[in-house]
């Protein structure tokens, strides 16, 4: 069926997250931009409490999430909308503030990886902590110093089996939230490492490394253009010993085959729409604020007129609306496919690529259209422009996503299209 009716469950989440965004995030967004690396504990604690009150499962969908109180009747299962709700929540919180959103102790990219590819036992073990006493953050560590962008196939960090342990060695850079996951809270990172360097991409797997594990240190925090409330760290793994069954997925993933690699890669089909949704939140905040500032400054936006009668500003705003809505629908489709358990690899990459383009374009145009108001730190527009750009860079640049899409539609592998 074709329908664009937002499910009630999702609508309620949006209402809640919008309240959080408006009241808890917008008022402090500028402060944490000005105070890079200061931890927004108020926001983190508030979100942790809210999450616990909502059942504590975190945001990440998992059919195996901690059970409700014993004896409670299982809820009648309606249509699955967990990923749809997740995307809407990421969007609404990023509408509040994308940098603070990345500090949410509710399960982000690391948790998404666990949820997408972990065994029931792993999901229980790693996701339960989001419902614990203290807030916990997570993250995903993929990029390494030698590689340009997130390239799973080019991982040099090694994981060597030693009995029941795995021993990790290597260095990760550009790890979003590394410090908060490993130092500020008792969280975890999903770290990509190769179980067989000679096997190329076929040997690459995700491992969970928990806070406090000896041999795992955060060595550097980056000073960034934007999303400054979120730390971006370097992580060095030196003989870092973890239980080997922290390798995410069923036992088969230990086989050094391309199939095992592909299974592990499914994590990106879940994480890309989250990143894309976050980008959309920034874009929507920018478009709404642009309209407000225009109205405050006496610029009227007429509707229902053809392009040939529009002003330049009207035309730019109309284009933004088209880009925003069409991209959001594309992302929605990709998470609907997740919920429906349909393969969504192509749609997830399309949504991520387009979201990166669109959020950059909308925020840059907004700065420009607003002249001195757009360029000034008196308003958040310039901050959103700085925050936005990361979405075209992290979790796969626009170019990487184009590559993925192109290979898919052409039926090509790395050999044909590099």
């Amino acid at each position, binding site marked *: *069926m*074709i*329908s*664009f*009716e*937002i*499910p009630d469950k999702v609508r309620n989440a949006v209402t809640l997250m919008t309240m959080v965004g408006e009241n808890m995030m917008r008022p402090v967004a500028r402060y944490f931009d000005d105070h890079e690396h200061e931890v927004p504990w108020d926001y983190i604690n508030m979100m942790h409490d809210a999450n616990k009150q909502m059942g504590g499962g975190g945001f990440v969908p998992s059919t195996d999430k901690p059970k409700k109180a014993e004896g409670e009747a299982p809820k009648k299962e309606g*249509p699955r*909308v967990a990923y*749809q709700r997740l995307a809407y929540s990421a969007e609404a919180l990023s509408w509040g503030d994308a940098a603070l959103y990345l500090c949410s102790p509710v399960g982000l990219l690391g948790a998404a990886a666990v949820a997408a590819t972990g065994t029931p036992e792993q999901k229980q073990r790693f996701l339960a902590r989001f419902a614990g006493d203290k807030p916990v953050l997570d993250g995903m560590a993929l990029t390494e110093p030698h590689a340009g962008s997130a390239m799973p196939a080019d991982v040099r960090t090694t994981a060597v089996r030693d009995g029941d342990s795995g021993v990790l060695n290597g260095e990760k850079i550009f790890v979003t939230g590394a410090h908060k996951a490993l130092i500020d809270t008792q969280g975890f990172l999903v770290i990509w490492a190769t179980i067989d360097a000679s096997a190329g991409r076929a040997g690459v797997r995700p491992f969970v490394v928990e806070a406090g594990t000896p041999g795992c240190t955060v060595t550097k925090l980056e000073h960034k253009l934007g999303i400054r409330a979120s730390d971006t760290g370097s992580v060095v793994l030196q003989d870092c010993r973890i239980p080997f069954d922290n390798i995410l997925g069923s036992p088969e993933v230990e086989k050094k085959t391309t199939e095992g690699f592909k299974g592990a890669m499914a994590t990106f089909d879940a994480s890309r729409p989250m990143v894309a949704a976050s980008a959309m939140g920034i874009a929507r905040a920018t478009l709404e604020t642009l309209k407000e500032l225009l109205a405050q400054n006496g610029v009227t936006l007429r*509707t*229902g*007129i*053809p*392009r*040939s*009668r529009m002003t330049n500003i009207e035309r730019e705003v*109309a*284009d933004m*609306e*088209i880009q925003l*809505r*069409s*991209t959001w*629908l*594309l992302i*929605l*489709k990709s998470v*609907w*496919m997740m919920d429906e358990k349909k393969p969504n690899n192509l*749609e997830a990459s*399309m949504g991520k*690529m*387009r979201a990166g383009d669109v959020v950059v374009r909308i925020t840059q145009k907004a700065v420009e259209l607003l002249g001195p108001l757009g360029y000034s730190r008196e308003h958040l527009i310039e901050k959103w422009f700085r925050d936005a750009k990361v979405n075209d860079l992290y979790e796969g640049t626009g*170019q990487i996503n*184009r*590559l993925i*899409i*192109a290979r898919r*539609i*052409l039926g*090509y592998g790395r050999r*044909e*299209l590099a």
Partner: protein
Amino acid sequence: MFGFEPNEEQKMLVDSVQRYALNDLRAAAHDADEAGELPPALVKKGWELGVLQASIPEAYGGFGDRSAVTGVLAAEELGYGDLTAGLAVMAPAAYAIPILVAGTEEQKKSLLPPVVEGDWKPYVSAFVEPNLDFSAADMRTTAVRKNGSYVLNGVKTLVPHAANAAGLLVYAALDGKTQAFVVPPKSAGLKIGDREAWCGLNALPTHKLTLEGVTVPADARLGGDAGHDPQPLIAATQVAAAALAIGLAKAAYEYSLAYAKDRTVFGVPIAQKQSLAFMLAEMATDIEAIRLLVWEAAWLLDEGKDAAHAAQMAILGASDTAMMVTDRAVQLLGGHGYIREHPVERWMRNGRGVPNFPGMAMV
């Protein structure tokens, strides 16, 4: 509940229209474009797929209920086959759907059966005007009440088959509000201009229509004395044109993708060049995203919600997509893209006109 998949009934319709699009429309499009006319049997066969008939209730001679969503699914396939022929096949919808949506019971009873019963006949609408800032909500053609009648004055363009129209629906501003009027093709004061020549749409005869004091009775106005809200009609024709444009874009995208995989330079398929492969990735993504805008606007129409903004986004987005994608398709074929042996230059010519096509079809 979100849903992004046509239901079974829609899938069956899409399948049959797609077969027609690929087997019949594609095969005929080049020669029709060069000759400047569509084989009547081709249009008749498209008509017999029953897309419009299935939108008209039995009470008015059809056999189903209108669904704009189903309509855009079908329209995309027609555009995928050949936009020109698609406009021809759908032309009667631009006459019938407004009557269905905005007509009085009596108008529906008397006007709809002749359209949907029997073969395709040129029931068409006169909507677009020959000014560069044409606006559906602010037309220059006027309707004035006079002695219980309406007097119409103005100039229309892009009226398909105007020279032999079986029925005409003319849009005009009545007190500044766009309203549709059923105008008998032989009315006094109605002048049919010479056949128009365009950049594309070569196979579809269109004409200028000049209305000089054309007088129609009061009941010629859709909705009778109360008239009708023009917005749902404007939205419905915008999404129809948008869906045709998405189909056209998809055709150009698929053709150029296949060409790029097939064509080798120095022994390597040109699709293996990042610059061309990334073009294709962007084309595919644009089509996918804008298609959803079109679907959403159609869904809003079916839900009886305000679709005005969504439909405008859909037609603007689909026009841009059609123009971007067809230009790139030509580019991907290199010099071959410039030759009329390949369909991409025709798709580019047809695609460039999309912003002007609302009013010519409806869902």
